């Protein structure tokens, strides 16, 4: 039950993009088609899960005993960056079309604040290792959910007579804002 609430909270109530406003860069960058969005979502789920699983022991075994808490950000980024390299090699070999579609945004996961954010959030909330990994995976699922929703909406923009100046990123930002308004639905639910 505890884990159930944790997952619901991370996916909906505290959705990483629409409620906490983290990871908006890939949210806008890779949401032009649903297929790419699903691929990106899968990559983010994997990277968040792995990075939380790796940064948690580092925090507990190295940073805290030696009083190096101030190095948290830079150490976490390092871990995430090497993980992303791994995912990149993996995709390049196994799924070249997805690799090409993700393009620049795959290396950009390195600096995706959703990934770093959830690695730091689990430390802040004081979760144990298992709970942290579940939280990380659920955060990735929440990111994927938001990404798939906005990409299916944006696919329709191609055939909409949207005013010229609002085409592309502006209308996507407005859409994200309106989706965020709708996600206020979950405000006040058991967190």
């Amino acid at each position, binding site marked *: 039950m505890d884990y159930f609430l944790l997952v619901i909270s991370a996916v909906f109530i505290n959705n990483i993009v629409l409620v906490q406003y983290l990871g908006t860069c890939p949210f806008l960058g890779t949401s032009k088609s649903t297929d790419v969005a699903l691929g990106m979502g899968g990559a983010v789920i994997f990277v968040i899960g792995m990075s939380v699983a790796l940064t948690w022991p580092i925090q507990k075994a190295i940073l805290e005993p030696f009083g190096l808490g101030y190095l948290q950000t830079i150490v976490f980024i390092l871990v995430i960056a090497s993980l992303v390299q791994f995912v990149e090699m993996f995709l390049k070999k196994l799924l070249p079309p997805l690799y090409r579609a993700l393009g620049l945004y795959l290396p950009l996961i390195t600096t995706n604040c959703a990934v770093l954010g959830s690695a730091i959030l689990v430390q802040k909330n004081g979760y144990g290792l298992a709970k942290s990994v579940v939280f990380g995976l659920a955060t990735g699922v929440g990111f994927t959910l938001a990404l*798939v929703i906005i990409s299916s*909406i944006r696919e329709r923009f191609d055939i909409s007579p949207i005013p010229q100046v*609002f085409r592309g990123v502006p209308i996507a930002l*407005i859409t994200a804002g309106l989706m965020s*308004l*709708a996600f*206020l*639905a979950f405000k006040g639910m058991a967190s």
Partner: protein
Amino acid sequence: MSPRLWKVGVAPHVRDNATVAGIMWTVFAVLLPQLFLSAYVFGPRVLALAGVGVGTSMLAEAAMQRLLGKPVSLSDGSAALTGLLLVYVLPPGVSLVLPFWGAIFAICIGKQLFGGLGFNFFNPALIARAFLAVGFPVAMTTTWIMPELPAFLAGPDAVASATPLALLKHSGLAAYLAQYGGPHGLWASFLGFKPGSVGETSPLLLGLGGLYLLWRRIISWHIPVAMIASTALLAWVFGPEGLFTGQPLVHVLSGGLILGAFFMATDYVTSPSQPLAKLVFGAGCGALTMLIRLKGGYPEGVCYAILLMNCVSPVLEDWVRPRRFAPPLKKD
């Protein structure tokens, strides 16, 4: 860009005399009895609210279409309907500023920026309500008017100023039944003599209007039936004293469920078009409504439930896209 989206199906196509204007003004007219009842119950200020809402949204529509260099299409009635629906989801005691800003938000941002009628993916009236709930939180949650009951309905002394659902949420079922229980309360609730938003109070009038739209085939049965059924089912299952002790009628007749099920969730543009997707859409609206009413931070959840389902409507539509029998097109 992708031509496949334009190919609806093979001939022959069904021809019909329905026009956008005809449908919009019909829905508008069907909604009017509820407005007159509210004007009687809550006082004539309701008419002023409706005037501001409808007027502003028509002006905003004309102004935006002028600015964007499009033909001005006020006569199709869609802007007027948006304005009316917006006022229907506001508390009757709000200041006239709210429908004014709400209508501008609904038309300019909710509708015209996305390309106008047929391209908005959120119901404009509801997204404007969500906007007003953020911008004017106090006015949107406290300005309810307690109606004076006509003699034949007068039951226990009416004291509360909250809506029935707010009472249910914050004080429990016993307090709710003391105020709205019994045959008197149920009739008053059913006829429309209870505090609530301008256009949600009378399940009787709204239900009759909805049935007329069904009969005219302006809306199909899938969404309203799925939405009301899933709400009733969940209200019954997750009752206040354990499983299967709930009062489905209380939840179906309270709040904006009937208004939402017949007039909001069935909006052509923001709901899916395939029957199966419609059923999922309606069931999702009902389930989210009950989730918010029972577990959420607000007493009422219809507005947010429909908005959330609006978000996923394109996804639903993609999932149930009819299979093509011809071999797939070659990708270039």
